[in-house]
């Protein structure tokens, strides 16, 4: 157990995303209400976005990748260690769009289900379709 703590502390960002992901997955599997499942799905997607964002991070004074002086006329050569990696963040802009549109489609479907079955509890909907 004492060996585990330094491992967790050293890579706490990854552990955080695992915890969030498991919360989301649990809600998607165990919850009965469709909206709660949707919230679980959103947490699940957000955890992956956080995972990507955290892997672009660099310690030791790295900043945003904007070169303040002109190329080749500055005081020093451009060193990648001075700048964070912007690519994961850019990728995640797309992933956020995907997750928002997934959520939109899912909410639209939930509205349609509510109009048809007058409930959003999954067991009640299944009971209704069994009666028919």
């Amino acid at each position, binding site marked *: 157990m004492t060996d585990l703590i330094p491992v967790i502390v050293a890579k706490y960002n990854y552990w955080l995303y695992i915890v969030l992901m498991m919360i989301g*997955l649990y809600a*998607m599997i165990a919850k009965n209400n*469709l909206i709660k*499942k949707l919230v679980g*799905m959103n947490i*699940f*997607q957000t955890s*992956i976005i956080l*995972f*990507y964002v955290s*892997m672009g991070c660099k310690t030791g004074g790295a900043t945003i990748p904007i070169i303040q002086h002109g190329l080749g006329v500055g005081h020093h050569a451009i060193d990648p260690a001075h700048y964070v990696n912007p690519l*994961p963040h850019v*990728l995640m802009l*797309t*992933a956020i769009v*995907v997750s928002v*549109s*997934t959520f939109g*489609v*899912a909410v*639209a*479907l*939930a509205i*349609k*289900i509510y109009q*048809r*079955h007058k409930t959003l509890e999954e067991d009640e*909907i299944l009971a209704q*379709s069994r009666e028919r």
Partner: protein
Amino acid sequence: MNDHYPALLIISPLLFSYLTSAAAWIRKGLCYPLAVVGSGLSAWFSVWLFANVLQKGTIEYRLGGWEAPWGIGYRVDTLNGLVLTVVSVLAFINLVSTRRSVAAEFPEKEGAFYTLYLLFIVGLVGMTVTGDLFNLYVLLEVASLTSYALIALGGGRAPLASLNYLFMGTIGGCFYLLGVGYLYIMTGSLNMADVASLLPAIHTSSAVWVAFTFCMVGVGLKMAFFPLHVWLPNAYTYAPSAVSSLIAPLMTKVMVYVMIRLMISVFSLDFIFGYLKVADPMVWLSVLAIIMGALLALAQKNLKRMFCYIIVSEIGYMVGGAWLGNAAGMTGAILHILNDALMTITLFLAAGNIYYKINGLEFHQLRGLFHRMPLTMACFVTAALSIIGVPPTCGFFSKWYLITGALQAGQYGFLAALLFSSLVNVILFFRVIEISYYGDMQHAHGHGSPSEPRTEAPATMLTPLLIVSTGLVIIGMYTGTIVTTLIDPIIPAALAR
């Protein structure tokens, strides 16, 4: 202009989907012609590309002119040229074929339907043509999101089935994205060819192993590989017939292609068969998929639902074939992508025609169909024979390669599962044929009425069905040529012959 065909392949249906959606506000009648043009252009570009690839070899395309590891590269070789042609041509045929049933089932939503239809083609074609791992994720979600919406157009339990598919599909997509994240951490690249060149040095790293597992679980969820198949039967059964004959043959097949692409071009076969020892468990999982798919299909009393479980079992064929680890198995798997897409679209188009005429697909409603719809049923029987694996049809030949592969690899369980599922398919289809051929006799005997009049589906629905079912026999007869000219060059030399 010709240089830009790989991009136009995707841009043309994308542009036309916006036009269709705008046209829906002006005049409903414009939507269908616009969709036909968009889908037809994409089909033409993919056929042209495929022909060119066969003559001149692999085509590389850089989006926006950025060099490969930094920009997004599109890459067409024989493997995805084949899948591209299958996807875009079948989507076009289905679009032409299902116009009447769309107008009958949801006339007020035609604009939305054709817009989503084109976007779905964008997703599938993009997934096939891309050479970039993250681009693949985005296009995968484009295809999935549109398929959720298309499925929800159906009546009854369709929205619930679609929402369940959405939950499962999102988990699948996210797992794939996680896998790509691990690969990015390890290699710092997202280009498939670049990742493949960087990976061999770090094969022993456990992060690569984790990346591989996440990617495979994600792709497996999207293609409904056996333990992860639960979303498929409901989603495809409750979908409108025009939608199920589009999504059922194409979506799962493209996902199998993505799996094979990841195996061959990203992780490399050395890593998969040499370092990871998971080939045996994967083959046994597909054995389970084949057997359970066949058994569950036996329990169904609805034609479309039965087809859905047959798809689950066919996915087992392809995954198993790819994981056998020899050239014959891989050939069988790739050939089966082509054959199974054709067989499934024939089955679902036939089911669509039947539904259009008798408004139901329960077995007891099918009585006397051979007398009422002889041509549709003739096509149905051709597809049935192909799924069972009777020689002149193409289903026999891919099964033959899979069985050869199983024997070479010593996977006798896989061999037994293939034979078992063929036998179950015989029972499944002959039960349907019996009901629809002889069912009428008992019926007529009871009432003493003359046989019912012929009410064949309209010609616009019948002609595409006849074309695809003739395709089954033609591809069967030319299997030798297809395998030597198209599939043999793709099979990596690392695989045992």
